[in-house]
């Protein structure tokens, strides 16, 4: 399956999962769907038959609230049956709203509280460097979660230790939970911050698959850890969800669900 089709399926699954189970964060999943699809379809090395294969590339979804998107990506990539997605966020399911590894093959690390993924990914990358192993570690963060100080501790550490196989991918849709990022706790000049902290920064349209593949796959050119600053649209793919704060929490139901699904079907 190519990344375009995988992204489309991630979006549709996530819409159905969040609608059926009544959970939030569809806007956040739609925002990152292309990044995740490119990683799983074209970039990362993994083996669905051996989810813990030692040389796999590691992926951590630090913005754990978009867990529906990861479950969908893993199911469509062959880690578990797609039918299991129907149980998401419901009584007795293994698929919680925020991503959990318990009983789910392919989930590297459980998240949900923000600012946890990058330190752990940094530890994995540091361990790989000590052992001179070649796999890569990808951590996908939201922009809003960069408010968390723990991230900046890890950003300092990774640069200091030149963890050049660590990729921090920012889903920079510029909207956080209650308002725009710049109206909440301004991050700009965001790229400059990462650069000044000693990272190699690559800016990209976070919905352009060809460019995403390039920047996510290319090794560090500088010996520094890599920050992929992916400019994205929150709610991407559903016109009435795009660039709105509302769809961070709102669940699509009834007519809204039908219209959203129709738009994704056409995409």
């Amino acid at each position, binding site marked *: 399956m190519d990344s375009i089709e995988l992204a489309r399926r991630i979006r549709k699954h996530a819409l159905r999962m969040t609608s059926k189970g009544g959970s939030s964060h569809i806007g956040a999943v739609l925002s990152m769907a292309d990044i995740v699809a490119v990683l799983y379809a074209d970039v990362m090395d993994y083996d669905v038959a051996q989810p813990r294969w030692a040389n796999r590339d590691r992926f951590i979804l630090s913005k754990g609230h978009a867990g529906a998107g990861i479950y969908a990506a893993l199911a469509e990539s062959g880690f578990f049956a797609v039918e299991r997605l129907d149980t998401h966020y419901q009584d007795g399911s293994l698929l919680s709203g925020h991503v959990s590894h318990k009983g789910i093959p392919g989930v590297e*690390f459980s998240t949900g509280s923000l600012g946890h993924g990058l*330190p752990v990914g940094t530890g994995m990358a540091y361990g790989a460097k000590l052992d001179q192993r070649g796999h890569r570690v990808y951590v996908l963060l939201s922009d809003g979660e960069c408010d968390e100080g*723990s991230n900046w*501790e*890890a950003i300092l*550490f990774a640069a200091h230790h030149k963890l050049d196989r660590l990729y921090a991918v920012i889903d920079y849709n510029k909207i956080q939970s209650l308002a725009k990022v710049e109206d909440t706790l301004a991050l700009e000049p965001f790229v400059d911050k990462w650069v000044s902290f000693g990272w190699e920064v690559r800016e990209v349209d976070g919905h352009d698959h060809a460019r995403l593949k390039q920047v996510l796959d290319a090794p560090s050119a500088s010996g520094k850890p890599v920050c992929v600053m992916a400019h994205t649209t929150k709610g991407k793919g559903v016109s009435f969800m795009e660039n709105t704060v509302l769809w961070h929490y709102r669940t699509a139901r009834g007519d809204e669900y039908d219209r959203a699904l129709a738009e994704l079907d056409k995409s």
Partner: protein
Amino acid sequence: MRNAFIAELTELVVTDPRILLITADLGFGVFDDFARKHPRQFLNAGVAEQNMTGLATGLAMEGRIVFTYSIANFPSLRCLEQIRNDAAYHDANVKVVSIGSGFSYGALGISHHATEDIAILRSLPSLTVVSPGDEWEVRQATRALLDTPGTCYLRLDKSKAPATHKPGDVFQIGKARLVRPGNDLTIATCGGILEVALQAAEVLAREHRIECRVLSVHTAKPLDVEAMQSAARETGGILVLEEHTVNGGLGGAIAESLLELGTIPRGFVRMGLRGGFASAVGSQEYLRKIYGLDAPAVIAQALKLSGKDR
């Protein structure tokens, strides 16, 4: 205790490539030997405990056994959520080591008083919580934690009881250690304040003919319930002594277990901190006296418990 810990770890690291020691920029001079001999197994993560604990989890998930080190509440409460969500939920082999339990850093003030850590950390599912009473226990505990899977908390004290182990003594995580035999009363304790328990027991035996069973309950979790039941059945009451709040500490753990099992001791006293934050300034010894945790206070409570105060 700090030196005993690092001495033991320096021995263990020679044959165990899984060990990695991370400090959050504390331990001046303490790690020099370790770091010089094993530079790939030592790391100063800077003054960044949240990242240190996340790092440790990531490293542990890749097969290492990681000791995170700092003082007082910095490696525990400062990064509590990282211990809970990252290390413990993933059953990661992270051993959180804090030097400075209770009033070890007494005169530095409440930021450096680790007086709620047992209660907080023992409430986390799957965590093992160890608070040794003397240096022998520290060395044994350090060694034992290597073979204890998952996330553990090792609480080290500045104070310590004098060496009490005898040839053949066995240290086991989750098993209280009988330091002094007796059947009149039990003094159950954890941490360096074991020294106070032993001082009090000595006086009680000599001057009041009360023979105390002194237990070093070095593992607050999992608790040695059997030893507590025996103490309840075989002695005239249990006095729990801890340099820690009485809320949820060792005394609370013992009370919960015994009441649930229906094994009710003839008397039960929790000696710990009660009256809010300890804002008095002074050494560990001084603060123990001020807050009623010194040997005279223990003796008074023991006499009351045994009915000999009248």
